[in-house]
């Protein structure tokens, strides 16, 4: 089919909200999640006469860390420019951004799709302030502006157009998320818009001659990135096949309808009249400043630490992805690996860390170093068949829930009964109480054996060694 000859080309711009306490240019709290509208504003956020920006150094530090996470050193020289346009949520009539000299130039993000590894190049990343939020209440003749978000620091990361499928686009977005999260550059809270993606999509049969692109803006989930790219590729191919031209335009993503829609008409041809902001001297970062950002980053170097965990050999790629969603859990996993315990023990603990513990803790700060040794003891007890799986899990839960929890006491109390003579007595008792089931087993209906084992586990409060119990039942019933 002719359609398969089309090559999609995708570039992604991502706004990452930097994890600072205060805004980019004002000493005002940055956390607008639960604040009443227009309460996190100062004369600077409000664009009052005479208000001047005072750059938040932390935002620069975090941007430097982000540069290292993208595999490059930050630029020593960068500067801020004014980008002019009128909109009610842009109080100064201009946005402060970095136009000609961004803080990050170059870099890459490594992705893997269907087992195939790929490097996606980064063009640049620049620091800029967010605008406020405008809402248009339905049926009203006014709009509302909330400036709480105005001035929030963002790092806009622009990829090369080196992504060629919706799956790759999703993988890129996810990887960027993990990189920024793990380097502690951003809270990357997607629900609150900490990370927003704009996807530029074009299709062409000639890889040297790209087609006309569209930009779908403000996607805030990986799924939306994937679907929007998928939809645009399909739509553009259909348009071309029908002999129509692709219009270069901004599109929006309708999550309910799962389609992109044209936003043209709302857009005007903009001349932003960029010029260097005379209120902000250019940044000339010292070697020392860059070095300290690098040192901070190296402690949280995603690629290095992932490689270390891969080499330890206990975790699948999927487990690793889950793990990296929570940097505290990664640190915890590293502590476990550093203990150099038996492989089967390490694997059990890591399984609990990834798949069990998150279901009953409120947040990942619960992964404290003093939990490492008790967890290993529990896993060793399980490994040596001193605890059955459910009892071991119970111990894990108690460890995180009960401050008084004593691990050796717990193991002692819950130790599996593996004494054959002791178990034989219990088995005989249960068999006599459940004649019907015993007869069924004796007659070869092996399903009933599970019931009998269950009864014995119940009688022993879960302490009986289930393998041994089964063996004894079979001996007794001669099957």
């Amino acid at each position, binding site marked *: 089919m002719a359609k398969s000859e089309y090559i999609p080309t995708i570039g992604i711009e991502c706004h990452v909200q930097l994890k600072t306490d205060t805004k980019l240019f004002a000493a005002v709290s940055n956390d607008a999640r639960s604040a009443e509208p227009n309460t996190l504003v100062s*004369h600077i956020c*409000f*664009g*009052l*006469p*005479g*208000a*001047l*920006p*005072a*750059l938040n150094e932390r935002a620069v530090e975090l941007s430097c860390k982000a540069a290292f996470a993208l595999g490059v050193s930050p630029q020593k020289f960068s500067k801020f420019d*004014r980008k*002019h346009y*009128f909109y*009610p949520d842009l*109080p*100064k*009539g*201009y946005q402060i951004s970095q136009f000609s000299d961004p803080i990050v130039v170059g870099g890459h993000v490594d992705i893997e799709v269907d087992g195939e590894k790929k490097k996606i190049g980064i063009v640049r990343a620049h620091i800029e302030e967010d605008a406020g939020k405008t809402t248009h209440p339905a049926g009203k003749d006014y*709009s509302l*502006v909330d400036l709480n978000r105005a001035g929030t620091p963002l790092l806009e990361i622009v990829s090369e157009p080196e992504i060629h499928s919706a799956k790759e686009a999703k993988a890129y977005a996810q990887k960027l998320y993990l990189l920024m999260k793990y380097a502690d550059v951003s809270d990357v809270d997607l629900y609150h818009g900490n990370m927003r993606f704009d996807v530029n999509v074009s299709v062409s049969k000639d890889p040297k001659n790209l087609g006309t692109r569209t930009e779908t803006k403000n996607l805030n989930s990986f799924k939306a990135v994937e679907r929007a790219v998928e939809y645009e590729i399909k739509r553009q191919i259909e348009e071309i096949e029908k002999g129509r031209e692709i219009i270069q335009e901004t599109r929006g993503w309708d999550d309910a309808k799962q389609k992109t829609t044209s936003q043209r008409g709302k857009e005007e041809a903009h*001349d932003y*009249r*960029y*010029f260097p902001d*005379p*209120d*902000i*001297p250019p940044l000339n970062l010292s070697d020392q400043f860059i070095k300290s950002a690098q040192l901070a980053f190296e402690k949280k170097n995603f690629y290095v630490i992932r490689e270390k965990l891969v080499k330890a050999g206990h975790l699948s790629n999927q487990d690793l992805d889950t793990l990296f969603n929570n940097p505290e859990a990664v640190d915890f996993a590293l502590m476990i690996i550093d203990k150099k315990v038996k492989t089967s023990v390490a694997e059990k603990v890591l399984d609990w860390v990834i798949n069990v513990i998150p279901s009953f803790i409120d947040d990942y700060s619960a992964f404290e170093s003093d939990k490492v040794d008790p967890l290993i003891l529990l896993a060793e007890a399980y490994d040596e068949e001193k605890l059955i799986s459910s009892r071991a899990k119970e111990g894990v839960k108690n460890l995180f829930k009960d401050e008084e929890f004593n691990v050796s006491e717990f193991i002692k109390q819950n130790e599996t009964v593996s004494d054959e003579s002791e178990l034989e007595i219990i088995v005989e008792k249960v068999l006599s109480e459940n004649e019907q089931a015993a007869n069924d087993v004796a007659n070869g209906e092996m399903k009933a054996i599970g019931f009998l084992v269950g009864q014995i586990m119940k009688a022993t409060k879960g302490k009986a060694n289930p393998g041994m119990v089964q063996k004894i039942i079979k001996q007794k019933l001669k099957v």
Partner: protein
Amino acid sequence: MPKYIWKSISDLADDVKSGKTTATELVEKSLELIEENEEFKPIIAVIKDGSLKRAKEIDSAIKSGKKVGRLAGVPFIAKDNFLVYGADTTAASNILKGFDAPYQSTAINKLEAEGAICVAKANLDAFAHGSSTENSDFFTTLNPHDKTRVPGGSSGGSAASVALSLAPFSLGSDTGGSIRQPASFCGVVGLKPTYGIVGRSGVVAMGSSLDVIGPIAKNVEDAATVLDVISGKDGLDMTMIDRDKESYSKLDKTIKGKKIGLIKEYMDESVDPEVIKVIKESVDKLVASGAIVEEVSLPLSKLGLPAYYILCPAEVSSNLSRYDGQRYGYSYKDAKDLSESYMLSRDVGFGDEAKRRIMIGTYVLSSGYYDAYYKKAQVVRTKIIEESDKAFSKFDFLVGPTTPTTAFKIGDKTGDPISMYLSDLMTVTANLTGCPSMSIPAGEAQGLPVGIQIIAAQRKDRELLGFAKGFEELN
């Protein structure tokens, strides 16, 4: 001319502290003088209740033996582009009429911390765009020496206030000569310090890379006292540099042996011969006192004005974007949609000169014109800085007239913006280079004051003040 003469600022504060007079008496005197001189229209708003309240606070602090600042009880007047509590901050523009500032400018805070009291807001060309106060959206201030003439601008109200002795000093802002030119026209001392030693936070921005805040006073000593109080980093303005560690009041008045460059381009046929005569007499006095005066040519200085009138409007067009009728200030009530609200609020709210500068600035920053105008002008600015640095490697100070003429007649230049712009010809260079520059009364031409401009190298403010003081004592 003024019937009342204020003592020096430090003497006034000493008198307040020693009980010879009170802050209340000084403020009442100032308020009385403001009322008596209303015909000159230097003032937009009087801060009567607020200033008297502060005066009482200072008086009772003194009575109870509490420490008060070095400017205790000294009244002053601020140009109306400084955000000050107690009166609206309008920048003499209709679009900001009724704007009650919720925060104060750094300079005002620093003065208040030392006990000074702001009694009134002075008139200016709206948004400080102009050289005569004729661009004020409200009214034109009259020159205290001749009511048919302008006081200069844009800090015309501030300069006239000091010439009329309404208060011991006033504050102005200088983007292309807006402190020095009106000081020259009104016969008072005007100081534009080095760019970056006085914080700009809380002053309505004009051209951010050029705007400098400074004092207008009746003598050099008072100007130095004020500079010493208002300068120094505040954390709110990133363009600031370290001030002199020494007090700006610690002045070396030596003239003997100082190397002075008399700027050739400012003494040519484009300048009123009467003005040149006064400057030459001043130079003679300096020579007689042992200064070594040589003529110096600064050929690029002629490019200062055209470069300035690209860079400044570019910054103006950007800085005035925030006045959009959406959050504060004037808003057109019957707009049918957002776009019309922007356009009509700005159309009605801005005066002609603001619009002219917004248009020029927007044009020179537009894609396709940026390189030809804005970027080229920045190159010229760099060259002018280099030329200035070179001159200061040879001379301690550069001198020349502050303005090409004495105060002109009201209405003379309003029809011709270019001729109005030309009155900044000799002052803009110091804004482009960031160098400190002062205008000191040097004499009179046909009964009107003539100021001599003295320029020093960057951060040589204290040296400049010392030399100016030495010159002042020759008169």
